[in-house]
């Protein structure tokens, strides 16, 4: 046995041991009902086995697909996973929003037996923007999807520019056969794609009829990522995503691989069109036939909680995750397209939401307030949200029925009471608030 093989064997033994411990912990945690087993075991296994992430991902038969971006990771992952599963592939996925390193490892451990053998054809891993550079090398992904970069939870992530610079630096060092799928409509990511030595497949929209009338306030990046000059937008689809060119250096939007008009989208909202196109571009590159992809899109059910319809006490309830300015402007657009009169907003500031709630001042809540009706607010930062809504009114003579309710259970009951029988109650929660709302509505705890 040569030295290399010996190391390999020792690696496998240590891996097996790490896996065994982690699995035992998962089992104990679950049987004692200690709550989320989604993050803890990975963290324990990692203490034992520093190369665990690499050793596990190496064993994924057809490769790791890494999904990064501020909005849409879960929806895109679930669509791609469903497509692959339709073809009979076994797919590992960090499905509970655990997208930090520990969560990735836990997801891979789920498909691993006690001696450390992993049994999955693909691993779809949602990765937090900030740890992308750290995990790229150990994961050696086959495909990297870069969905978008919005100002979100900047308290943890730092700035959009810095993030994209770090991504570019590390992705450039990956093997040339790595496929990168960036959003062409996002200037920062378009530029990222243009700089890479790898094969790059862009996705984006080609639908000028969907342009917004004006660039919304919640915009991060309307300056040329290459030279810093203002970009000229022919039109904006949402936030800073659109059709652009730089009058100074000639930088412009990259050409998407797919013709967006030819593809139906999953769920409501323009951002889900992007999620759909991203997943389709990846699926096609993996060799999945068009018929299977189109059929999956037509039958796709809402990714849990992200745009979900429930029926409670005979009334329809639609939950629209609203965790940052861009997402919330979009969910307000969805509410405004309906004639429904009651909306519940729930603002939390826990770690998964971002502890900084100042982003609500970048949301164009004026558009929600102008239509009147009943607005119920709740959550950890209920008064911050209430202030934002109050300051959305130009006059002190308000036609808005603003109800402030600290207690979430009570807030939901009040909102349901105000919802007429033939209408839908729209609930706009942050991430942790969404889990709580769902628990109240269904009586089931999710995490």
């Amino acid at each position: 046995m040569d030295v290399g093989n010996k190391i390999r064997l020792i690696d496998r033994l240590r891996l097996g041991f790490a896996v065994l411990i982690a699995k035992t912990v998962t089992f104990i945690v679950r049987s004692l009902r200690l709550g989320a087993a989604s993050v803890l075991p990975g963290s324990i296994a990692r203490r034992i086995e520093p190369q665990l992430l690499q050793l596990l991902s190496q064993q994924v038969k057809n490769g790791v697909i890494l999904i990064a971006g501020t909005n849409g990771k879960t929806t895109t992952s679930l669509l791609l996973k469903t497509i692959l599963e339709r073809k009979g592939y076994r797919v590992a996925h960090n499905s509970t929003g655990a997208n930090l390193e520990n969560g990735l490892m836990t997801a891979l451990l789920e498909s691993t037996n006690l001696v450390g053998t992993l049994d999955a054809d693909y691993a779809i891993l949602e990765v937090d923007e900030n740890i992308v550079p750290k995990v790229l090398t150990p994961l050696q992904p086959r495909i990297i999807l870069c969905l978008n970069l919005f100002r979100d939870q900047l308290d943890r992530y730092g700035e959009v520019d810095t993030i994209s610079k770090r991504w570019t630096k590390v992705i450039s060092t990956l093997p040339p056969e790595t496929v990168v799928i960036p959003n062409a409509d996002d200037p920062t990511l378009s530029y990222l794609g243009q700089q890479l030595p790898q094969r790059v497949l862009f996705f984006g929209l080609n639908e000028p009829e969907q342009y917004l009338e004006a660039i919304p306030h919640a915009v991060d990046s309307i300056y040329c990522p290459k030279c810093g000059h203002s970009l000229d937008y022919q039109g904006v689809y949402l936030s800073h995503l659109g059709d652009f060119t730089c009058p100074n250096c000639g930088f412009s939007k990259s050409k998407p691989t797919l013709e967006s008009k030819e593809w139906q989208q999953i769920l409501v909202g323009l951002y889900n069109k992007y999620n759909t196109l991203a997943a389709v571009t990846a699926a096609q590159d993996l060799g999945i036939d068009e018929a299977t992809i189109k059929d999956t899109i037509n039958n796709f059910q809402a990714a849990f909680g992200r745009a979900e319809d429930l029926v409670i006490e005979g009334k329809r309830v639609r939950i629209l995750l609203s965790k940052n300015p861009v997402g919330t402007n979009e969910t307000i657009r969805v509410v405004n397209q309906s004639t429904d009169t009651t909306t519940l907003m729930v603002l939390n500031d826990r770690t998964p939401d971002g502890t900084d709630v100042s982003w609500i001042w970048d949301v164009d809540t004026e558009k929600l307030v102008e239509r009147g009706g009943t607005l119920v607010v709740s959550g950890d930062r209920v008064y911050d949200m209430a202030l934002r809504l109050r300051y959305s009114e130009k006059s002190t003579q308000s036609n808005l029925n603003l109800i402030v309710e600290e207690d979430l259970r009570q807030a939901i009951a009040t909102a349901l009471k105000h919802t007429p029988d033939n209408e839908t109650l729209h609930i706009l929660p942050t991430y942790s608030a969404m889990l709580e709302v769902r628990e109240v509505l269904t009586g089931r705890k999710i995490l």
Partner: protein
Amino acid sequence: MQELIIGWLYPTLMSTYGDRGNVITIERRAQWRGYSVKVLPLDRDSTAADIKSVDVIVGGGAQDRQQEIVMRDLQGAKADAMREKIENGTPGVFTCGSPQLLGHYYEPGLGQRIQGLGILDLVSIHPGENTKRCIGNLVIEVTASRLAQDLEEMTGSKPYLVGFENHGGRTKLGKVEALGRVVYGLGNNGEDGTEGAFYQNAIATYSHGPLLPKNPFVADWLIQTALRLKYQQAIALQPLDDILAVQAREAMFKRLKVSL
């Protein structure tokens, strides 16, 4: 009808973390009292005359690259106009990145030192990419003597401000007066207990949040000062219903276990 013109510094370049909330708060509180309000963006298309025409100035935070673009633009006659406004007592609120550019210079974590206007005697330095950002809820007591006195007269109690800080840079004050002392959080540099700066009628702070919605008396002080200066007469502002702001403040004091 009396009119208030709000000058908003580089809205598309300098508006991180909801800083436009300060503009919205001043605008609404003046509108609700029947004043006519104009928000004038002071950006790259604006002239020195535009800067001179405003009654109150609001500036927000920026990413490092955007801050550089701003400083390239704010030169010559525009820089002079800005300096003249602040020296002559035009009130303003400057958050995070904008105090850095009113100071002598800002050194980003990566790249070249960005020269400021040198109006405020302070310098800001980012200690490097691997240093932790100062992030979290912030409570300060206003100690800048003239402002503290004005605010105490308006509210009948010691002025405490509630906000949220989120900055990589650390600021050291020279001879300029601090805005306040940190009661909870880190402030200018996490070391000397100071937060922000106060010069003539310019309020500089690291407090996003944004600052004004939860500290409405500061917004009123800005409006009052601006109108008094403009119309050269005493201005009495009608009281507004601020119960939501009071509740938001109390909720935060309670959570942070700050007893005032």
